[in-house]
């Protein structure tokens, strides 16, 4: 009997069968549902301008926010360092959630442990959990460094990580020399991006301080010619590869500070290792002597940047995610300026090819009204890309606050960027708003395209707007993170994603005389 003869149906087709339709109807008598009319009216009302006004006037309830909590970012940051075990101090459910959430995006394992604090730790503090946890995790998972972040539980009861780690050393659970970095990441402050920042700063400052090295930026010693580069809370492993390609083309020496691409794009070899790649621990203190530091997420890495320019007294260039031609031009000019090296011809040629591709596609992009959702640095990059292609950003939502960099707030920068272009005149930037606000915006002021994470799919569906998945998390599409979206090559990928989504829409809607072969 073939599979077809067995009539095996997936859940979409199975539950469309008449017997299941009947079941659904029959069940309603026990559900006490609202009448069809009530539901239809409520649906229509939820799409109205009146509802939108109410939606925007709510003060306290948050509905479908586009942000996660601090320690999630810290776990990702810790995985950016060689043989480093992320260690979450607090109740264990948080750690389970961070591991699932990150694994669902990357389709890769997320090794991370927790101190499994329960009621007794809530009363007496989590010191014993931390000491036992260090002993067990170091014995079992053999990391070369442990990177501890806190959850809201540990923060509310006021656990003192520094003294707890000290006591673990006194008890001999770990040696005096064993590196344990840490940061405080209460979930009721900031978001995943500030948590990422806190851990990067925690690790850099910890490894630097304990090394005894005194920073002499650009001193010409071993690391003096190197450039430090930070990508930030980076959901694209492909972006790391693209950046390496660019830096390789410049023929500059560099250290990536926080590189989780190895962990989140590891090969299936038949054997699982807990740690893949990452920034070498010995490279971190040396990075204090580097020529300069380049940050590719200036809003995300705010505190780390302050640390580097302050304590390391180092030259620092901070950009937002380098998307689009101009964004990449800026990246290359910045690298050139920091290193004194000319922009390589190979990249100039690549630029030409991607500009050519943009020309080929521009008629389908021009004037397209776009909604954008994401983290601050991604949004700055996306806005720039849209404006240079003739797309018009209309609704822009950033749930995770109005982060500032050098006293310029994200909202101010985004608005200035938009105001400088005739294609940005219709845009409104909403900070601290959520995807339920976005739903109202999409329904009341229609756009052609939405760009954002998988979480945006619900609002996009209600508004019948095609969604191009960019950012974090992307749960419902495969391998997006393996392709870069930064640099010229990334621009080409982004362009392909967008233009082909638009062309697919044309095919879906133009099924008659204009169902065309050539576009």
């Amino acid at each position, binding site marked *: 009997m073939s599979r077809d003869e067995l009539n095996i149906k997936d859940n979409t087709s199975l539950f469309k069968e008449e017997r299941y339709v009947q079941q659904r109807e029959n069940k309603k008598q026990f559900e006490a549902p609202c009448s069809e009319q009530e539901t239809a009216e409520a649906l229509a009302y939820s799409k109205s301008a009146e509802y939108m006004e109410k939606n925007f006037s709510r003060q306290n309830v948050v509905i479908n926010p586009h942000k996660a*909590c601090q320690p999630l970012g810290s776990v990702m940051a810790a995985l950016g360092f060689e043989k480093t075990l992320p260690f979450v101090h607090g109740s264990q459910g948080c750690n389970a959630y961070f591991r699932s959430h990150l694994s669902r995006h990357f389709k890769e394992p997320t090794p991370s442990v927790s101190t*499994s604090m329960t*009621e007794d730790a809530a009363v007496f503090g989590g010191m014993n959990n931390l000491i036992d946890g260090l002993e067990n995790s170091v014995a079992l998972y053999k990391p070369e460094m442990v990177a501890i972040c806190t959850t*809201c539980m540990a923060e509310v009861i006021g656990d003192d990580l520094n003294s707890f780690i000290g006591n673990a050393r006194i008890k001999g659970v770990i040696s005096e020399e064993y590196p344990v970095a840490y940061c405080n990441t209460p979930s009721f402050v900031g978001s995943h991006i500030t948590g990422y920042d806190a851990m990067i700063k925690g690790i850099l400052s910890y490894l630097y301080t304990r090394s005894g090295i005194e920073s002499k930026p650009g001193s010409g010693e071993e690391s003096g010619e190197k450039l430090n580069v930070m990508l930030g809370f980076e959901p694209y492993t492909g972006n790391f590869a693209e950046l390496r390609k660019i830096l390789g083309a410049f023929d500059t020496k560099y250290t990536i500070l926080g590189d989780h691409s190895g962990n989140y794009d590891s090969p299936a070899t038949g054997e699982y290792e807990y740690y893949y790649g990452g920034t070498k621990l010995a490279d971190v203190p040396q990075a204090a002597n580097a020529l300069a530091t380049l940050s590719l997420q200036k809003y995300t890495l705010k505190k780390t940047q302050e640390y580097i320019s302050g304590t390391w007294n180092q030259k620092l260039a901070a950009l937002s995610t380098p998307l689009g031609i101009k964004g990449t031009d800026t990246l290359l000019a910045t690298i050139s300026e920091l290193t004194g090296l000319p922009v390589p011809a190979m990249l100039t040629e690549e630029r030409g090819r991607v500009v050519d591709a943009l020309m080929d596609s521009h008629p389908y992009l021009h004037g397209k009204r776009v909604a954008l959702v994401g983290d601050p640095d991604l949004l700055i990059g996306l806005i720039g890309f849209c404006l240079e292609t003739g797309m018009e950003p209309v609704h822009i939502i950033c749930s995770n606050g109005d982060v500032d960099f050098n006293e310029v707030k994200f909202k101010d920068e985004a608005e200035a960027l938009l105001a400088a272009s005739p294609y940005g005149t219709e845009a409104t930037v909403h900070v601290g708003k959520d995807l339920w606000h976005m739903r109202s915006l999409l329904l009341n002021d229609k756009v052609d395209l939405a760009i954002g994470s998988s979480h945006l799919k619900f609002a996009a569906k209600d508004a019948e707007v095609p969604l191009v998945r960019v950012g974090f998390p992307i749960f419902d599409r495969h391998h997006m993170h393996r392709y870069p979206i930064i640099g010229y090559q990334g621009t080409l990928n982004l362009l392909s994603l967008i233009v082909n989504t638009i062309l697919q829409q044309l095919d879906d809607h133009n099924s008659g005389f204009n169902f065309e072969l050539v576009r």
Partner: protein
Amino acid sequence: MGLSIEENQKLVEEILEAYPKKARKDREKHFQVADEKAIDCSTCAVKSNIKSRPGVMTPRGCAYAGSKGVVWGPIKDMVHISHGPVGCGQYSWGSRRNFANGTLGIDNFTAMQITSDFQETDIVFGGDKKLAVIMREITEMFPLAKGISVQSECPVGLIGDDIEAVSKKMSKELAMPIVPVRCEGFRGVSQSLGHHIANDAIRDFVMGRAELAETGPYDVNIIGDYNIGGDAWASRILLEEMGLRVIAQWSGDGSLNELEVAHKAKLNLIHCHRSMNYMVDHMEKAYGIPWLEYNFFGPTKTYESLRAIAALFDATIQENCEQMIARYKPVMDAVIRKYRPRLENKTVMLMIGGLRSRHTIGAYEDLGMDIVASGYEFAHKDDYEKMLPMLAEGTIVMDDPTAYELEEITKKMNIDLVGSGVKEKYVYHKMGVPFRQMHSWDYSGPYHGFDGFKVFAKDMDMTVNSPIWDLVSRRGTMEPKEAGV
């Protein structure tokens, strides 16, 4: 299959050697190799439902995950507030695949994340006032919501907010059930306490609050089916085909009214005993409703369960049951005829939540597969007592196994199929070991009932027999071959 009690005991001992002394002493208590005595007397020496060791990669979650993620979240016509910081609600948003009919955001709120998004000021000054405003705003935003539940996260309990008082006051003001659920993540040792707390809240705030227009002799409830991938629908259809009337479905695709009228049933049918045994016990005591644990994984267990259910009713139902089994059996036999030869004698390791590690054994056996190791994330003693008689001698039974233990067992026992969750999945992909995500059916399903078994069999075959596993360049086979070969 060559399961040996002695060998596997030795294997477990070897694995445990990696632990520091204190942790090793604890972990030892969580293992048992099934022997004649344990199987026959269903005694169980495995320690369960106690704290995980700090610093090990436990698969466990927390009480909030048990309450909001499992029990309350799927109640579709109520709004469930993730009360506290943003993370918990974000991570549990839509990830358990509880299917529900309805219009999302209008009369169905399952795949949504509604949170109070606690900020530092809420920690300092408390979140009670904000909670009241949130409830008012919810009725503005979602006029068709039938009720609200407050799923409290860690800080709420630690700062001493009185969510009960706020809920009581607002329930009056808004004239709808508002249920405070004290499921802070630090309570208990796993999701399990969250289930219990959630069940207590159902008991205290909604049970028995509504009436059924008419009751009948065949009225039953489906308890503890979360409708992952449509499981509860594939189960319900069989009960209804048999002539029973399912008046409430808890909690997958469930509604407030179903929770409120369930006490009118003549029988409670419980699938996930682990998460909802508290309910059937209570309903038996308070309303005299008998209950029966059933298992709709795989035809053998499904036939058994259907007959056991029918035996509690009259001859009409029993006759219907036999006729129904007669109708489905040829199809089930055909499924087995096709897939069994492809799966015969394959070894399976399971580590799932609190029910499926036991309930799915029969389904694997129907396909000729051998369970050689099985464990639970958050089970209690009774789960192990029920599991042991289902196992062959030499099977490794493990409680709250750590990532390290699972990986070692897989390597040392040369496992053909691992069934566990998303945190484990990609580890086994690296190892080149066939894997199914058995919390969420790996985005497939349903797996319950006869319709579900077809999908289950197809999925297991697809997984075990995919040619991709042969592409994994295992170490050792990577050595350069001599030229000319």
